[in-house]
């Protein structure tokens, strides 16, 4: 076991897979020689050569399309989109092409592409470097959507994504790249080295697609979330002294309804949380499905903790971010009901 932050863990996943499988290639804007603006692809070009880890022109549609073409010819491309906020020029290639190739060809052509992209706020990124656009991608039949919350999962999930026969949009919450985050903006950056999930095996292992993780057991309320908010929810429950069960979804599509339903049927209370704006967010899908599954076990309306229906502000970033106070308010509301 080694201690890794999330960047090192993701880099290790790519390294392990490129070592094992000569068809795995990695590319993106600044992702070749320099190793990516967040350094996730560092040293891969040096180790595996120019044709396996290379710089791409600034054209997200072309990056996704190139990956589709390569995958159709048997490669396993891992394309980096530098910020999730920049993914939209590539959206047509994802929605109309990548997601449907297996379907529209009745399985005769497939494109097992992984698109990695850093998402989320908390790094003073302003409106163009802070988005959590995962909900858009959960609305596209044919793609899988994943978002890890710690280095151990990040590596095992990325390896699963690369090995999957179907495309994966892999969101990396960049606030967690260098250390865990409890949602208190003023606090010093802590280190993944002191967190149990910062212990990461150096070799190959997988965290399966579609399996959630109960990261905190409890009986009073279930909090279902993913990415940065997994850690914020845990910290908020500790601070409030609430016996909350926190579920880290890890895979959004297809999400693990069994684990969620088991927990909500036990606690009878539920909060769904996302960093993205509230309206039509993924939390809305979770709330709808949970009430279908668990209506007669629910003792209170499901609460949502989300960002606001505004763009991500720069100066008032921490008024936007759904921090511990908002979780505590939601826990109070759902427990008092």
């Amino acid at each position, binding site marked *: 076991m080694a201690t890794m932050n999330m960047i090192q863990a993701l880099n290790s996943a790519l390294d392990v897979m490129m070592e094992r499988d000569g068809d795995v290639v990695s590319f993106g804007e600044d992702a070749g020689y320099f190793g990516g603006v967040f350094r996730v692809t560092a040293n891969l070009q040096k180790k595996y050569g120019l044709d396996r880890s290379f710089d791409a022109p600034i054209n997200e549609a072309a990056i996704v399309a190139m990956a589709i073409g*390569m995958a*159709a010819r048997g490669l396993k491309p891992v394309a980096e989109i530098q910020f999730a906020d920049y993914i939209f020029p590539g959206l*047509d290639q994802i929605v109309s*092409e990548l997601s449907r190739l*297996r*379907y*529209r060809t009745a399985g005769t052509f497939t494109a097992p592409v992984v698109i990695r992209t850093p998402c989320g706020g908390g790094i003073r990124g302003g409106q163009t470097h802070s988005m959590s656009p995962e909900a858009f991608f959960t609305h596209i039949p044919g793609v899988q959507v994943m978002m890890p919350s710690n280095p151990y999962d990040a590596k095992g999930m990325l390896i699963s994504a690369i090995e999957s026969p179907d495309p994966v949009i892999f969101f990396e919450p960049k606030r967690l790249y260098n250390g865990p985050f409890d949602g208190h903006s003023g606090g010093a950056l802590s280190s993944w080295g002191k967190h149990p999930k910062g212990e990461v095996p150096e070799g190959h292992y997988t965290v399966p697609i579609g399996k959630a993780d109960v990261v905190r057991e409890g009986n009073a309320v279930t909090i279902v979330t993913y990415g940065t908010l997994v850690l914020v929810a845990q910290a908020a429950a500790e601070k409030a002294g609430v016996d909350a069960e926190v579920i880290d979804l890890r895979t959004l599509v297809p999400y693990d309804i069994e684990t969620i339903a088991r927990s909500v049927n036990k606690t009878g209370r539920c909060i769904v949380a996302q960093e993205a704006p509230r309206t039509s967010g993924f939390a809305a899908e979770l709330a709808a499905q949970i009430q279908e599954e668990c209506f007669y076990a629910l003792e209170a309306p499901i609460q949502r903790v989300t960002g606001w229906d505004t763009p991500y502000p720069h100066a008032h970033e921490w008024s936007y971010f759904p921090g511990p106070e908002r979780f505590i308010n939601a826990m109070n509301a759902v427990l008092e009901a």
Partner: protein
Amino acid sequence: MAQDEPRFHVPAPHVRPGDTPDFSHLDLQAAGEAPRPDPSVAGMETRDLALGLIGVLDHNHQAVGDWDPKLQPDVLREGLRHMMLTRAYDDRMLKLQRQGKMSFYMKSTGEEAVAVAGAMALDKGDMVFPSYRQQGILFARGRNIVDMMCHCISNSRDNLKGRQLPVHYTWAEGNFFSISGNLATQFPQAVGYAMACQYKGDKQIAASWIGEGSTAEGDFHGALVLASTYKAPVILNVVNNQWAISTFQGIAAGQSPSFALKGIGYGLASLRVDGNDFLAVYAATQWAAERARAGHGATVIETYTYRADAHSTSDDPSGYRPRGENEIWPLGDPIARLKNHLIGLGEWDEARHTALEKEQNELVIASYKEAESHGTLHDGPLSPVNSIFEDVYAEQDWRLRRQRQDLGV
């Protein structure tokens, strides 16, 4: 009230419905005039070829100039046969659509040489990424006509399980990629595919086709950037058939005098070719394929042609262009030109031509009868209903399993 003069420039065609068809404004280089450089030439050196017009068949139907591919009569007859069958098939399918036998159809009339000569000049192992008007490739590669029809009528034998609009073919065994319908998306995909061919160390290349109207899409430019940056073994064909549904080519061309010229800005070898000249399309494709296979990179080929019929069965061209334009198109008809060339060589005659037409029409009619025996969109049988939940992913997750059960299948 409309302004007398528009306040900004909006290009317009020379003639509109009610006007006399007229192409006298076109200044087209004569067959045989364009020089043929070595396929290893630097891309920038092809600028004059991007502005000119590569042609082989002259007004007397003789093959002239450096670009003459000097094909054997058998190959010429094969090309003629594929183009004629493409047309016979299109004509029959249009009639069947009008009879309500299928939801939609798109003909390639007048553009048969673009697809057939392009496909014949490639290896059968090369992957093609067509748009929706290159059905000629399927004939050139020998696809079963009954299978094509079963797709178009979405019946129980449709290899795409009824998921695609008619003419949006896929044929993996024939190295024919899936036709999207979203314009230009296949162009940058073809570049990625070509790069993967190089990565795998084989001599396979990729070729793609889009219409001139689609060059306005970002994916056209993305494809050219990728092809140039990575020197990919790909042929990027722009089929300039003058019309994007009702929109004339000038709306996409703007002030650019040719679509091939756009490739020069990316440093790519770029050729403009008489798209109704089977020999010219063949020769240009052969040149580009040789260039790609030798590692000299991509070629942009503008095939200059004319969409002789409607965009699709949902379109009526009399609303935006004069009737009869196709009859005076200065580059003529690709089938008539190759036929006359073969007759001039003493390798073909009217009687054989008429007999072949009859034979092909009968084949098409018989093929449809057989296709219909496997069902039609209207009366079935179709692919099983539960197939709508298949192939979304390699395996059905709980959502799809439940939804399939909700539908009761």
